[in-house]
C-alpha cells in the first residue's frame, strides 16, 4: 500500500512537530520497516528541542545515547533558562489575574501602561515570543499556545504576529483542540487574504501550508468536510492545488464523495479539475469519481471502490481509528463507502429505465432481499423516484420531464408584474407631460 502513501508529499508542507503524528500512524500501520521510521523520527527531532524524546528513540534503536545528544540537552536547558529569565517580568505580569485585568482593548495604551508601571518594554515582549517559540520546540504546546496568544495582543510587529498565528495554530492542532484550531484557521486565512506578500510565490506557499494544516482540523471535526470543500474549491486555493499540491486532490475528492448531496453544484467543476489533472495526479478516489461521472463505467467504479477502502485505511487523515464503546471503528471509511455506494446507485438509476434487482444486489454486495429492502427504503424516503416490479424482479424508474404547461406558466408569470410596472410608469409620467 506504500504506493498510495502520501506522507512524503505532505511532510514538506508541515511543521516538524506536525509530522510526528503522521510518522506514528505509519509506525502503527507497518507499511515501512520500523527502524526506518525511527530513524526518520530522530532526524526530525534533531532540529527540535525535544531532546529527551529523541534520546529515548535512539536508545530503543541503538541501546545507547551519543554524547552530543547529552550536550545538546544541557544546551537546551540553559537556553530555556536564559529565555525564561528574559521574559520573566512579562510572564509574571501575565500570570497575575489582577494585573491582566487592567489591560484594555487598546494596544498602544497597554504598551504605554506596561512600560510606565511595570518597566516592561518591547524587548520583554519580544522575549516572550522567543520563549514561546522555544517552548513549542520543546513540545510544551499548551504553554506555547498561551504565550503566543498573549504575545499577539501585545506586539506591534505584524510579521511576528503573523508567525505567532501559525505557531498558535500548530499548537492547537498538536493539542488536538480542534475547535480552537478551526478558529485559528479562520483567522489565519483572513490574515493571509489581507496581507501583502513579498512575492506571489510566498503567498502561494502560505496557502499550500494552510491547506495542509487544515487537513488535521477538517478531518477531525464533524462538519469539517463541508468546510474543506468550501476552502479548497475557492478559486485561489484550487489554483494552488492544481499548480503546487496535486496530492491534496485526494482529500478533496474524499470530501466530495462523503458530502455529495450538499455540493451537487460544485462536483461538476471538481470533476473537470480531476480530468485536467489526470495526467499529474490520480489515485483510487479520484479515479472512482472519474469512472462514475465521466465514463459511467460502473464496473470500474466498483473495482476502484475496493481500492479506496485500502487507501483510506492507510491514510493518516482519512483512516484514523476511533474507539466507540471499546470497539475500534473507522468512521470515515464507513461513511465514505456508504455514500459512494449511494452515489453509484443514484447515477445508475438516472440513466436506466429498468434494473434487475439481482444484478443490483450483486453489485452492491448485498443479498437479494437486503437489496430489495434497501431500495424500498429509498423509495419510501422519496430519495428515489421508482417502483419495484417484484414479479419480474426489477426496479422501474419513474420518468421525469419538465411539463410543457409548467413551462408556459413559468414564462408567463413575470408578465403580469411587468405590465403592472409599465402601467404605473405611464401613470406616473402623465402629469409631467401634461
Amino acid at each position: 500500500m506504500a504506493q498510495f502513501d502520501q506522507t512524503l508529499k505532505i511532510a514538506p508542507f508541515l511543521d516538524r512537530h506536525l509530522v510526528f503524528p503522521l510518522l506514528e500512524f505509519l509506525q502503527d500501520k507497518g507499511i515501512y520497516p520500523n527502524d526506518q521510521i525511527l530513524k526518520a523520527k530522530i532526524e526530525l527531532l534533531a532540529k527540535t528541542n525535544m531532546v529527551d524524546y529523541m534520546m529515548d528513540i535512539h536508545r530503543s534503536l541503538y541501546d545507547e545515547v551519543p554524547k552530543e545528544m547529552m550536550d545538546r540537552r544541557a544546551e537546551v536547558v540553559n537556553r530555556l533558562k536564559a529565555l525564561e529569565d528574559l521574559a520573566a517580568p512579562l510572564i509574571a505580569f501575565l500570570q497575575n489575574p489582577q494585573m491582566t485585568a487592567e489591560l484594555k482593548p487598546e494596544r498602544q495604551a497597554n504598551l504605554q501602561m506596561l512600560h510606565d508601571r511595570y518597566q516592561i518594554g518591547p524587548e520583554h515582549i519580544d522575549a516572550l515570543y522567543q520563549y514561546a517559540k522555544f517552548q513549542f520546540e520543546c513540545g510544551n504546546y499548551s504553554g506555547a499556545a498561551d504565550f503566543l496568544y498573549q504575545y499577539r495582543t501585545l506586539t506591534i510587529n505584524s510579521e511576528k504576529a503573523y508567525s505567532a498565528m501559525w505557531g498558535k495554530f500548530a499548537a492547537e492542532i498538536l493539542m488536538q483542540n480542534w475547535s480552537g484550531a478551526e478558529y485559528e484557521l479562520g483567522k489565519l486565512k483572513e490574515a493571509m487574504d489581507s496581507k501583502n506578500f513579498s512575492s506571489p510565490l510566498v503567498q502561494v506557499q502560505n496557502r499550500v501550508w494552510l491547506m495542509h494544516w487544515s487537513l488535521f482540523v477538517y478531518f477531525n471535526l464533524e462538519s469539517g468536510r463541508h468546510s474543506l470543500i468550501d476552502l479548497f474549491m475557492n478559486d485561489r486555493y484550487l489554483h494552488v492545488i492544481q499548480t503546487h499540491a496535486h496530492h491534496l486532490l485526494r482529500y478533496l475528492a474524499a470530501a466530495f464523495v462523503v458530502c455529495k448531496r450538499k455540493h451537487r453544484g460544485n462536483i461538476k467543476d471538481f470533476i473537470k479539475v480531476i480530468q485536467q489533472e489526470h495526467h499529474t495526479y490520480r489515485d483510487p478516489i479520484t479515479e472512482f469519481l472519474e469512472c462514475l461521472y465521466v465514463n459511467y463505467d460502473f464496473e470500474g467504479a466498483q473495482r476502484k471502490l475496493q481500492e479506496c477502502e485500502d487507501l483510506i485505511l492507510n491514510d493518516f487523515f482519512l483512516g484514523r481509528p476511533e474507539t466507540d464503546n471499546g470497539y475500534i471503528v473507522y468512521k470515515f471509511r464507513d461513511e465514505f463507502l456508504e455514500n459512494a455506494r449511494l452515489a453509484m446507485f443514484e447515477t445508475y438509476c438516472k440513466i436506466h429505465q429498468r434494473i434487475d434487482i439481482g444484478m443490483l444486489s450483486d453489485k452492491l454486495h448485498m443479498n437479494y432481499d437486503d437489496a430489495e429492502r434497501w431500495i424500498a427504503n429509498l423509495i419510501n424516503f422519496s430519495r428515489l423516484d421508482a417502483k419495484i416490479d417484484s414479479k419480474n424482479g426489477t426496479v422501474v424508474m419513474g420518468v421525469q420531464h419538465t411539463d410543457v404547461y409548467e413551462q408556459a406558466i413559468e414564462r408567463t408569470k413575470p408578465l403580469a408584474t411587468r405590465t403592472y410596472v409599465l402601467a404605473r410608469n405611464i401613470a406616473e409620467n402623465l402629469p409631467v407631460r401634461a
Partner: protein
Amino acid sequence: MSKFWDQGVDSDSEDDVKSSEDADDFKDIVTPGEAGNKYLNKTSDSEGSEDEKRVVRSAKVKRFDEMSATIDQIRNHMKINDWVSLQESFDKINKQLEKVLRVTETAAPPRIYIKALVILEDFLSQTLGNKELKKKMNSSNSKAFNYMKQKLKKNNKIYEAEIEQFRKNPESEAEDEDDEGDMSSEESEPDFIEEVQDVAPVSESDNEDGWQKSGKGPSYIIKKDPSEITWDMVDKKLKEVIAARGRKGTDRVEQVEQLTYLVTIAKTPAQKLEILLHVVSAHFDVTTSLNTHLPVNVWKKCAHSMMAILDILAQHPNIVMSENAEPESENETQKGDDYPGQIRVWGNIVGFVERLDDELFKSLQVIDPHTKDYVDRMKDEPAFLVVAQSVQEYVERIGDTRAAARVALRRLEHVYYKPQEVYEAMRKLGESQKTAEAGAEDTTLVLGTPDLPELSRTMMDDLITLIYKFGDERTKARAMLCDIYHYAIFDDFYTARDLLLSSRLQDGIMNMDILSQILFNRAMAQLGLCAFRTGLITETHACLSEFYAGGRVKELLAQGVQQSRFYDKTPEQEKLERRRQMPFHMHINLELLEAVHLICAMLLEVPNMAANAHDVKKKVYSKTFRRLLDIYEKQAFIGPPENIRDNIMAASRALMKGDWEKAVAIVQGLDIWKLLRKREFAMDMLKSKIQEEALRTYLFTYASSYDSLSLDQLMAMFDLPEGLVHSIASRLMAAEEFHGSWDQPTRCIVPHNVEPTRLQALAIQFVDKLSTLVEMNEFADNARTGGGGGGTDFFSRHKDTQDYVGAVAGKRERGGERGGGGYGRDKNQRGGGERGGGGGGGTGGSYAAGYQSTRYQDAYSSVGRTPYQSGPSGRGGQSDGGGRMGSSENSGMERVLSYGDVLLRRRDVELLHPPNFINDHIIDFFFSYLSSSGSSDVLLVSPSTSFWITNCADARDLAPALAALNLRDRQMLLLPINDSADVEYRSSHGNLERGSHWSLLVFHRPSNSCLHFDSLDGANDRYARSLHARVSELVGSKPRFVSAATPQQENGHDCGAYVMAIAAAVKKGFESDVEEIVKRERSMLILLKVMQGVNDPTVNSFRPVETGQACVILSCVVIASVILSISQFCDKAV
C-alpha cells in the same frame, strides 16, 4: 523589390573588392606585435586596391555622365528661369551624388557636383537681387524658388569648404568643363585627400608635423612609421573619424576601413578595444534602413570584431566596459597593459549582440528560402550562438545579470523552435565547422564551437533558469513562451499547458508588444498541434479556433502578409508587418494547422449540430466551421474534394449521416499528415474519435425513429467495444443531452421521444407572443417617455429578457443568430433590437439571418418601413460624442418632427449645430423629404439600407429582400455611404458604430455609371467600390465606377451636409436635365459655399454659373430652410 536587389548587387561587388584587404586586417587584430610589417603590407595592398578600382570604373563613368547631364539640364532651366524644374533637377543631382559616392567609395563629393552647387548658388543670389524677375514669377514658380533658397543654403553648408576652394580655383573648372565625364576617378582622389584634412581642420593646424596627407587606402591617415605613432595620435585620429560619423556625406564604408586600420596601430589594449567598438558600430552603420539587412560579409566581420573585443576583455580583466563610463573621460585608454587599476571604456556589447541577432534575423527574412543562400545563411547561426555565449559569459563574469538575461533570451530564441533532429543538425554543424576551420575560412564563419548540450531541453532549462532569475518582465514572458513552444514541440502537452495557465500570460498578452504577441500566437498554434498529437480534441480546438475566427492566420503568425478584403493597408503598415515576418525555417505549416483545426471543429460541431437541430438557443462551437459548411452545402454542384477544406467538408457530411467509414477514409487520406509527427498514433486516434462522434451524431439524429436501440447493434454499427458505447450513451443521458435511458435487462436504449405535441407547441408559441407583446409595450412606453420612465429597473429587467426575445426573433428569422446581439447596451441599441424582434416579422425577417449584430436587422427593417421604425438608429457613431450622450439622454429622445415615416428626435436635431457629425437619421429624414416630390425614377436609399447593402455577408440575400424597391426600374439611385469599418473588424474589436465620414454614390442608368461624390477625395473610395460591386448586381447592368469631382469640405464635420446637398442637387438636376449632372459637379461648390456663408475669393475664379443651376440653388435653399425650420422648432421647444 527590384530596387533592393540592385543595391544588394552593388554593395556585394564592392564588398568583394574590399574583402581581401579586410582579411588582412583581421590578422592584424590577432597579431598586434607585427605592426611594422603589416604597415608595409598595407601600402602594397592599397596599390592593389587601386587597380581593382579601375574595374568598377565603367560604373563610375556612367554615374558621372548622369550627373553632368543633370547639370546641363540645370543650366537650361536657369535660362528660362524655371524654378520648378530646377528644384526637381536639384533633387535629382543629390540622389546621383549618393550613387557616385558609393561607387567611388569616398566621402568627398566630386568636383562636378560642387560646380553644380556653385552655379546654382550664383543664380540664386542673382535672382534674389533682381526684384523685377521675382515679381514676374507665378505662384508655383515663386514657391519653388523659396524652397530652393532654403534647401540650397542648407545643403551648401555641408560643402562650404569645397565650394570655397572651388571658387578660389575656378580655373580647373574651366579646364574640366569640356569632358566632365573623364575627370571622374583621378580627379576625385586628390580631392578626397583634401577632404579628409578638412574634416578636422583644427587638429591639422595643431599637429602639422605629425600628419601627412598623401597615399591611398586607410593607411594614409597616419603616414608614419608605426613605431613612432603615439597613443595621442591614434586617439586624436579616432576622435576625428568618429566625429564624422552620421554626418551627411560621410562614406560609411570608408569609415570602417579607417577604423580597421586604426585597430592595427592601437597602442594599448584598452585603446584597441575602444576602436574595435567603434569598428562594430561603424559596421552596423553600413545599412541605415530598417528594412534592409546587413550584407552577409559585413555581418561576419562584425562577429569577428566582437570576438576580438571579447578576447581583449578576457585577457585584460581590469578593463571594464560599461555604458556609464564617460565617453569623454580623458585618457582612460592610455593606461597600458600593466596599469593596476580599472580602466573604464564606454561601450555596450549586449547591444551589439542584439543588433547582430536582429541583422541575422532580417537577412533570413529577406533571402529567398528556396535558394542555397538561405541555407548558407542558416549556417551562420552556430557562429552567432558562439558570440552570444561568449558575451553572456562575459557579462556574467562582470556581474551584469540583467544583461546576461537579455543575451540568454537571444540564444533561447535560436533554439526554442527546433525539434530535436534540427537541433542535432545544428550541433553537428557547429562541430563540423570547427574541424573544417583550417580550410574554409572565407565561406563559412568560424569562431569556435558553440557549447551545445546534447539535448536542447538541457540548454533551454539552463537559459530559462537564468532568465527567470534576472530578466525583466518582457524577457521573462518571452522566455516562458519559448519554453511553452518547446514543450509543445516535444509533445509534452500537459507541462506546456500548465506553464501557460500558471503564468497567466494569456491575460496580459494583449498589452504586450506585437512581437511578443506573435510569439504567443506561435506558441498557441504549436500547443494546438501538440494537443492534437496527444489526442485532445477539445483542447486543440480551444487553442486554434481563435486563429481562424478572423481569417487572419498568416498575419497572426507573421508568416506572410494577408490581403484583407475589407480594407487596404497603408504602405507603412505593410512595411511594419514585413519587418515582423518570421523567417521561413521557423514557420508553422499553415495547411497542417488548418486541417487540424477543421477536423477538431468537425468532431465537436457535427454532433452538436445534430443534438440541437431544433433548438433555438443553440450553442455553437465553431462559427468558422458552420460558415464553411453552409457555403459548401449551398453549392449547386459538389465536385470531388480538392483542397483540405473541401475534403473535411465532405467528411463532415459523411459524419452527419453516421457514415464513419467514409469520413475516416477521407480524413486519413489527406496528404498533409506526412508533416505530422506521431502519424500512426494520430491516425488511430482520429479513427476512434470519428467513430465515437459518429455514434453520438447517430443517436441524436435517428433516435427519434426508434422505440429501442440495441447495444449490440450499435457496437456492430460503429465498431466500438461495449464499454465505450455504454459509456458514451450514458454520458449523453446523464447530461440530459439525449432523452432516453437504458433498459438494463434487455440491453437496450429506450429513447423517450419527448417531442411536444402540437397543442403544447402552440402553447409555447403563444407564450412567446405574449412576452413579445409586453416587451413591445415597454418599448413603446420607453420611446414615448424618452427612456426616463422605467428607469433602471426597467432596464435591468429588459436585459433579463433579452435572450428570450432574441430567441423569438431568431426563430422567426430562419434560425439566425440571436437577434439582440448588442441589445440592451444602450438605449439606442434597444431601439434597433425592438425592430429586430418585433418589426422583423414584416416583409420577411428571414433575410436578416446570420449577421452579427442588431444593426443589419435595423438596416433591413427600414426597407420595409415598419411602424416601429421610430427609434433612433443604432449607428450612434457619428452622433454619440461620449459624455454628451449621457446628459442629453432624456431630453434627446423627444420627438421633434415627424415626416412621413421618419421621425426626428431632439438629439438628432442637435447634431445640426456645426461641430457635430450628421447621423443617418438626419439623412434619412432629408431623403424622405426629398423623395416626397418628383418622379419615382429616382430612389433615395436610406442610409441604413445602403449600409446593409454594402456590408451584408451574403449578396444572394440582397435581391429578394430589396425586391420591394424595384431597383431595376429606377433610373437613378442615390446611396449614402458611411465608412464605419467592416463588420468583422468591428465585431471583433467590440467597438461598433464608429463611422466618421459620409459620401454619396449615385447610380445613373442612362449613362450606366456609378458616380461617387466624396467631399474628402478618396476617403470613402474603398466603401464606395464595394457598394458599387453590390449595386451592379442589383441593378442588372454593369455600371462603370466614376470618382466624380466633388466640392471638398473645409472642415472635419460637414460631410453629411455635403451628402445631402449633393443628393438634392443631383435629384433636382436629374429631374430637369439628365445630361447635365456630370458637367455641373464642380460649380456646385459655389452654392455650397454660399449656403455655408463662406466667402472665399477663389470661388470667383471658376467658370460662370451654367444654366440649369438654378435648380441646384433651389435645392440648397430648401436644405437651408429645412435646417432653419428645424432649429427654430427646437428653440421653441426649449
